[in-house]
């Protein structure tokens, strides 16, 4: 079974063809502003190199940073109305309250409060006031809103208000994009609501991008289903991605790390991913990226997504190199995607980290003669500095005092030295430059439950079983092969400072992607 994995990065679009667990071919093409151009070129390259039969491809997996970039740049965001059910509670902090001015303006800043929502035990804070909601809806439409983000207090416990609101919007404004907070975020109203608003603002762009992706894959003669990779390294189909673009946000670093695990066969290690501008360091545990223990801000907006725990420093293959042997300086400025025209070895006029690597004989690319004049002492000192800073980040990320194996991936990973202080081994696996596309290609399907359950005495096992079953069912519903689904994470936390039985249970399951008849 052939899988095509594609990673659309800011600089390069990488593509790999995988047969079972074997990498058949890999390629890199420059990313184009419309996203799809780079994909088309990459698929053409692969076809030219291998002559693969498009009909043999069973699935296409795409990882893209496009949506998070659009948010960061406040570009092509839909005018969005944020409507919350929570009154008479929550009024002191209305939706959009802590957003950066620039972003909230880009959305139109439409924020509304209605009565309702639930308590933690599932009882209503207030009844659904249909008249009130319809009036808010009218106001939002008149203000120009084209996408709707609906949140409700404790909607992970009871989604009734969000669902009723969605029915009314669908009836009044057929075809309008609706994002419901209980389908997007976890417990914690503001973080969940913010993620929902971000999602709503990206819905129009998601329509365009997913349509473009599907069209360019079909245009290459591939009729297989298309999936996008999510923050946790699992997959969603293209229709789901159209409705939940926000779920792609952290897929970049996750895919690199999952790809590194696949290529190196290591399940516990540090992954050093060196790109053109930055080096990202993360930790793999049981083959999955360690998640950040605290909430993560995206474009200065607080969300409660679980993101991989990644530390970045401004060193990459395109980093500018200045100073002298006594005090070399590498980065954080970078020539970025213009490496192949700017770097000395490619005939340019700028000294980059890649030139250092060529001068030191670490790699053979471009014209080594163009860096032969560099003072070896300076080259050594600058590369030592790169090594020291990478070692420092690995040291900060590692989970024990023991030295940890390091897997280096990414196009710039020639900069990672063969020995790194604090590393038990440094490994640069084959196909290291396209680890992220490989991570996309091998991704599985996931499902999750995160809710407050009432656990009566002696009922704990039954409640946990119920939650486990729900996570398994969700995973199968998301497209996993039933026999392969397994629980990967169980968390059980009693609500603090409250007596009684309320317990927050979070269970995550994953399984292999089901591709119909020819699975074997």
């Amino acid at each position, binding site marked *: 079974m052939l899988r095509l994995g594609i990673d659309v990065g800011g600089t390069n679009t990488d593509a790999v063809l995988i047969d079972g667990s074997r990498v058949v071919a890999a390629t890199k093409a420059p990313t184009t502003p419309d996203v799809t151009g780079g994909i088309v070129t990459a698929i053409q390259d692969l076809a030219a190199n291998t002559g693969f039969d498009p009909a043999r491809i069973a699935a296409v997996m795409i990882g893209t940073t496009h949506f998070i970039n659009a948010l960061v740049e406040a570009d092509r965001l839909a005018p969005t109305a944020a409507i919350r059910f*929570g009154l*008479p*509670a*929550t*009024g*002191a*902090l209305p939706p959009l*309250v*802590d957003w950066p001015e620039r972003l909230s303006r880009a959305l139109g800043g439409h924020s509304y409060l209605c009565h309702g*929502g639930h*308590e*933690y*035990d599932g*009882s209503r*804070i*207030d009844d659904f006031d249909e008249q009130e909601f319809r009036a808010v809806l009218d106001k939002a439409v008149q203000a120009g809103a084209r996408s709707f983000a609906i949140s409700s*207090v*404790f909607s992970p416990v009871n989604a009734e208000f969000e669902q009723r609101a969605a029915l009314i919007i669908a009836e009044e404004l057929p075809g309008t994009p609706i994002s419901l907070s209980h389908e997007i975020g976890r*417990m*914690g*109203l*503001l973080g969940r609501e913010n993620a929902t608003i971000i999602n709503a603002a990206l819905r129009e762009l998601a329509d365009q991008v997913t349509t473009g992706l599907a069209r360019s894959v079909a245009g290459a003669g591939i009729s297989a289903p298309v999936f996008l990779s999510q923050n946790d390294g699992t997959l969603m189909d293209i229709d789901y991605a159209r409705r939940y673009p926000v779920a792609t946000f952290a897929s970049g670093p996750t895919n690199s790390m999952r790809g590194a695990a696949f290529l190196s066969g290591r399940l516990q290690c540090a992954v050093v991913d060196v790109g053109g501008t930055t080096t990202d360091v993360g*930790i793999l*545990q049981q083959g999955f990226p*360690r998640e*950040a*223990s*605290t*909430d993560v801000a995206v474009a200065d907006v*607080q969300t409660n997504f679980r993101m991989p*725990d990644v*530390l970045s420093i401004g060193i990459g293959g395109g980093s500018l190199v200045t100073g002298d042997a006594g005090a070399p300086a590498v980065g954080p400025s970078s020539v970025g995607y213009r490496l192949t025209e700017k770097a000395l070895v490619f005939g340019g006029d700028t000294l980059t980290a890649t030139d250092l690597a060529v001068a030191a004989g670490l790699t053979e690319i471009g014209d080594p003669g163009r860096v032969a004049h560099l003072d070896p002492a300076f080259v050594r000192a600058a590369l030592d500095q790169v090594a020291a800073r990478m070692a420092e980040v690995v040291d*900060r*990320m*590692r*989970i*024990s*005092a*023991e030295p940890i194996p390091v897997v280096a991936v990414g196009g710039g990973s020639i900069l990672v030295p063969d020995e790194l202080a604090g590393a038990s081994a440094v490994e640069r696996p084959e196909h290291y430059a396209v680890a992220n596309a490989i991570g996309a290609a091998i991704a599985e399907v996931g499902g999750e439950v995160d809710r*407050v359950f009432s656990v009566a005495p002696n009922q704990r096992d039954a409640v946990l079983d119920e939650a486990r079953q729900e996570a398994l069912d969700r995973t199968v519903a998301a497209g996993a092969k039933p026999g392969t689904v397994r629980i990967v994470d169980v968390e*059980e*936390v*009693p*609500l*603090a*400072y*409250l*007596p*009684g039985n*309320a317990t*927050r249970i979070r269970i995550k399951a994953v399984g292999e992607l089901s591709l119909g008849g020819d699975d074997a």
Partner: protein
Amino acid sequence: MATDLSDVLPRIRAEHVDALAAGAVLLGSGGGGDVSVGRQLLHRLVRERPVELRPADELAPDTLVIHVCLVGGPDVISERLVDPDDLAVAAQAVVDHLGGQVGAVGVLEIGGLNGLIGVLAAARLAVPVVDGDLMGRAFPLIDQTTLAVDGQAITPMALVSPAGDIVLMTTGSARATQAILTSTAVAMGGAAAVALYPTSAATLARVGIHRSISACIALGTAYLDPRATDVRAMVGLLGGRLLFDGRVDEIRPRRGTELGSVTLADPVSGATARVDHRDEFLAVSCDGLTVAATPDVVVALDPSNRSPLRTDQVRLGQPLVLFSLPSLHPWPAEAAPIVGPARFGLDLEPTT
């Protein structure tokens, strides 16, 4: 009145809020809830009107001080949020019962969200906040205060729900007050705004914990200092005492009143540590020796991003650096049954 006030702020302004919140997280000893909702509200309120910060001994001795806090589950508060109006209504309900008027608001506990809630109430009521608190950290029980140790009454106490329900308890024993507080908060949806411990500035000057808001802001400022590049440097900058550096080996969650615990191991030396917790970290034992115990403040820092973790944020396999912070208050020996390990059912003999 010859105290050196050079490091006492006259007012809490918007630029102090992040440091206050960061300090309150550290002083929460792994509990006290999530400060983020309080931080956002306080930013909004003090931007318009800074809050006057006054040590108890600088207020007129007969000034009526009401303590204001939230009780309930952090998960409830993170959904239903906090309304400063509810805090003001609770304080007013106590004053209406007593007669007179609110002269200042007191902070019940400097650790966690409640470290900000008293300031928030003072901002909303436009009165000064007393530069002090009653716990010196976060504690789960309402009588774990310097005032209770001194025999002062918790009541009259008022609880307010977002729906506008008000419950006033005019008088009661510590035991009944705790039970009524908890059950009323549950009836109010799992959290409530509370005003209690009405007292005088003179009493606070005698038995309150002094300058804890200033100390909290100073602690938070040191924590946010970008110069603390590694964890050990940060522990030094905070004046902390390093207890253990290792990885989480085992987590036994709290069940009902039964305490939970976290076991850590240092893979190089083979040393192990055990942290007992209820809603806060209560004690740390290294290789069987108790090296810190309540009322000591214990901080568990994730060294990868240097953030202090609450008891519910600790995960298996995670690296943790444990340290204790200098005490804000010299608890007298007779306070041990109220704030010491025995109060939580821990049979420990601290060795420090």
